[in-house]
């Protein structure tokens, strides 16, 4: 046991793959992250930098080559079921109703269906899915499905939630609405959120801290503290403070995006 003020710590996390000719290729890291409790932290990086690999490692779906992960001071690398995890695809089971989908995490943990439903229904009602409990995913719009997927993650009730571009496939209006909604959820449930996005504006608007990653193999290039006051109104994105942060962040990111492009062009 380590005693510390952090909710989650990544120490020296890296991932290497054996390549075709037997040499090792570094895909990610080393990465060190320290995330305090109830923080909203975003990770932005050029595509292919290994953000999703990082999330797969944290959620225990992929083994890290080196390093350690601590949640609440206990070592958890290689373990699944420690964090809540949500992807851009809603990944709702098409043969289950929305209610049955939302309780999937609880069901897997062994909660009885009746109990799980009793727990889920008030949440569905409160968070905009009232009347859709018995619908099937195919009957819902993309935004509604992402709501259900997010509620499934919330209901799974882990302290740390990983969101991998959850709104990436939504149209701009729906996306703005979902951002508000996510902030409400985050506030109500006091979760620690790790959020991957391509959209710098989204990252700054939502987060307390933004990490910008380098091109592959991804490491942390820059750490930005976003000390804009909360609760934030959507209009904040036009304020000078916001614009300045965004400009600075984008400049850092574009250097890496260019590097990533050159790497790709060089083969």
């Amino acid at each position: 046991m380590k005693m510390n003020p952090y909710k989650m710590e990544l120490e020296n996390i890296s991932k290497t793959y054996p390549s075709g000719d037997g040499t090792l290729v570094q895909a990610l890291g080393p990465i060190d992250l320290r995330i305090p409790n109830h923080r909203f932290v975003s990770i932005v990086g050029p595509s292919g930098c290994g953000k999703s690999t990082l999330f797969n490692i944290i959620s225990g779906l992929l083994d890290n080559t080196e390093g350690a992960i601590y949640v609440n001071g206990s070592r958890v690398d290689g373990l699944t079921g420690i964090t809540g995890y949500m992807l851009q695809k809603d990944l709702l089971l098409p043969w289950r109703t929305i209610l049955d989908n939302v309780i999937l995490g609880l069901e897997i943990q062994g909660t009885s269906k009746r109990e799980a439903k009793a727990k889920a229904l008030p949440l569905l009602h409160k968070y905009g899915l009232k009347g859709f409990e018995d619908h099937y995913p195919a009957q819902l719009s993309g935004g509604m499905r992402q709501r259900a997927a997010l509620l499934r993650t919330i209901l799974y009730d882990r302290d740390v939630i990983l969101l991998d571009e959850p709104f990436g496939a939504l149209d701009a209006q729906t996306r703005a609405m979902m951002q508000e909604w996510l902030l409400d959820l985050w506030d109500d449930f006091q979760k620690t959120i790790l959020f991957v996005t391509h959209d710098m504006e989204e990252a700054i608007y939502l987060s307390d801290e933004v990490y910008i990653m380098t091109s592959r193999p991804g490491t942390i290039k820059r750490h930005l503290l976003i000390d804009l006051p909360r609760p934030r109104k959507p209009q904040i994105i036009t304020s000078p403070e916001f614009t300045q942060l965004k400009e600075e962040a984008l400049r850092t990111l574009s250097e890496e995006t260019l590097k990533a492009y050159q790497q790709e062009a060089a083969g």
Partner: protein
Amino acid sequence: MPSEGDVIERKGSLGKLRNTPPPRTRTNALKYEMSAPKPWLVNIGRLSLFLAVLLLWELGAGIGLVNSFFWSQPSEIASTWWIGVQTGSVWQDTFYTFRSTVYGFLLGTAGGTLLGLSFWWSKYYARIFEPFIIMFEAMPKLALAPIIVLVFGIGMGSKVAMGFAITVVITTLTTYNGVRSVDKDLVRMVYSLGASRLQVFSKVIVPTAIPAMISALRINIGLALTGAIVGEYIGSEQGLGRMIFYAGQTYEISLIWANIFNLSILSMLLYILVGKLEGYLLKGFTHK
């Protein structure tokens, strides 16, 4: 081909384009393309065609154009069939074949589904079995009939075994393909919720494979019927196949036709039943 004159003329008046066909009103041909045939007219057409064939056959046999020794004739077939109805043999044979078919169908479908699903459990086991399954699928299973009748006897067992052999492999392959088509991200998501392998199997793999299994039902019923009939050809005491085979050997051509008629009715009945089952299952399991 446009000439220079066209261009000049185009400038002045749009209405006077040379070489351009005049706009057409909606033609009858287009109206026809967009229309649907009237159901009652279609039904009359079908009935007339059927009756016309029977009539020509009957007349042809009457004037000696059709050799009724080889082809028999409708009136004779009808009276043979009616005798069968009166003695009850029609019902007996049809019911016997019906039962063999349904048992073979159920066993083969269930067995194939279980086998197909079982391949998900071990990649080695699946890889080792794969070529044998495909080899067995490529082989005409009807060729097994003599062995199956030898082993299972001339009772219903051999007909059920035929139906099983002919449906089990196709169901296995269909189910296995369904299992393999599972969305890998869905599997990862369920694992990320801390699921065990058994939980992934029951909550993702089985439901994914069910539509594939349902799609196999309609194919299987036809195959099981074929299996039962061939089994009856080889050796049986009852059944439509046995009657057809027996009638063929004794040159009772009208009896062959009468039983083929029964077989067609049975086959249609089975298709309708399985179609209903399929619709019911699809409604319950897929929500598109």
